[in-house]
């Protein structure tokens, strides 16, 4: 029974070798040191990996956090501001800086990038949806890597995605991606809280998001990002409904993306509906 399950899982992951359009989401924790400031060596490695994947003719969309942290660093602020208007101001400063750094590193690998800032009404307003879809599709056809973030400076409660896990899942559906990879400081979804329970293991694959599974997700989270496992599970839910595979894994070494695309059992794989083991 167990070996049958493993075979099925391996079969599930083997198809990752044929993915042609993927969305990668990196959280603040994957881009920064623990003090919240950017880790350039990490970002450089990420741009190298994504450029190499793009050179294999795989279309890549990057959803990147980090703007507010970069803005705070630029202004030399020692504390993260609480007020919305200040956060929005920092996002405006930091987003430009972040793009400058991405552009610089991607250019080392001869890779062109574009910036796209989205608000949630793109998903509900038919015209905006179509415009965004057309632009993204055109960029991907031209071999460009779009770098997407929430348009924080104009996002208010009614139109915000709220976190970049949700944003990346929406982007994955928008561009009809085949795979979403969520990189953070969490190795995957654990069977129990690894800080408390020594027997906790990473769940390699999930074919149905049950209330029990959602309960496992509570508690995990990092200090700097807005997400945690809860938002990652809801992102996986959105993708499952749209028949898009999702993998949650640790982004400390961005080269892990190569292994995922090789079909290795890394992190937690949220399987697509119709191909799931029944």
């Amino acid at each position: 029974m167990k070996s049958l399950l493993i075979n099925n899982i391996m079969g599930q992951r083997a198809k990752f070798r044929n993915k042609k359009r993927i969305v990668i989401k990196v959280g603040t924790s994957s881009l920064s040191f623990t003090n919240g400031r950017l880790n350039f060596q990490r970002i450089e490695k990420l741009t190298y990996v994504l450029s190499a994947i793009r050179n294999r003719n795989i279309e890549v969309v990057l959803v990147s956090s980090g703007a507010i942290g970069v803005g705070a660093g630029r202004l030399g602020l020692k504390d993260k501001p609480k007020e919305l208007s200040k956060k929005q101001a920092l996002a405006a400063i930091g987003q430009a800086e972040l793009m400058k750094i991405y552009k610089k590193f991607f250019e080392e690998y001869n890779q062109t990038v574009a910036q796209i800032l989205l608000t949630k009404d793109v998903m509900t307003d038919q015209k905006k949806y179509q415009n965004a879809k057309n632009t993204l599709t055109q960029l991907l056809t031209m071999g460009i890597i779009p770098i997407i973030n929430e348009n924080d400076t104009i996002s208010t409660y009614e139109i915000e995605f709220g976190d970049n896990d949700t944003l990346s899942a929406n982007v994955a559906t928008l561009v009809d991606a085949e795979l979403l990879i969520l990189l953070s400081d969490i190795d995957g979804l654990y069977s129990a809280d690894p800080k408390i329970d020594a027997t906790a293991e990473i769940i390699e694959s999930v074919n149905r998001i049950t209330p029990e599974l959602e309960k496992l997700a509570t508690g995990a989270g990092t200090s700097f990002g807005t997400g945690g496992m809860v938002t990652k599970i809801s992102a996986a839910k959105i993708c499952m409904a749209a028949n898009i595979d999702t993998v949650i894994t640790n982004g400390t070494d961005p080269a892990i993306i190569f292994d995922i695309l090789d079909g290795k059992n890394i992190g937690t794989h949220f399987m697509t509906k119709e191909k799931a083991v029944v």
Partner: protein
Amino acid sequence: MIDSKKMCEGRIVVRIEISALSNAEGKFDHRKMDRLAMVLSNLNNSGKQLLLVTSGAIALGSDKLNLKKQPQSAVDMQVAAAIGQAELIRFYQHYFDQYNQIVAQVLITRDVLDNEVRVTNARNTFETLLDMNIVPIINENDIISTEDIELDDNYPLALSVAKIAKADAILIKMDINSNFIIQPRGSLKPRFVSDESQLIQELENINDELKSMDKNDFYYPVSIDEILVNQ
């Protein structure tokens, strides 16, 4: 945003020789300075405080004047240094700015250590700059200090700065490869780091080792021969 516990974990004097910023023909190499600015900005972001001691003013000034060879007389060298120092800082500022890092220029004379008031003044300036998360870029004020201008060696200056700022280590970058040498404070032996991605880890290790040691102003000397052997 910034975790105060992780801040100020280590203060490093970085000693840059112009040869580390030159290509095989001995010409200034912009890519090398860009890379160095990236590695150092990253070190700073990781929570280290950096003071940069750099040579290169005379070489860049000679380049700017299209001199076929390095000037020989003291006054010619000083002229080249005056022109080249402005160039050198302009380049550092440009490349550090790519990584959102603010730098400041500090020119001091080597006798600064002989005078208590000057030491205090220099220390206060360094402390204030470092507290503002700015990297001071320090060079000898060649125009008014003639004694050592012909010596193409900024080690005495780096040592003075390390003592003034009570740095935990001197990080030396003097070849055209990606190698670094770390001279820790106290009686710890110098270390050779050939992979720049290991720098942060190695400096963390030194920081941990220093915690259980008496802090003094001694930096185990490294000779050029040792550096060459390690390459």
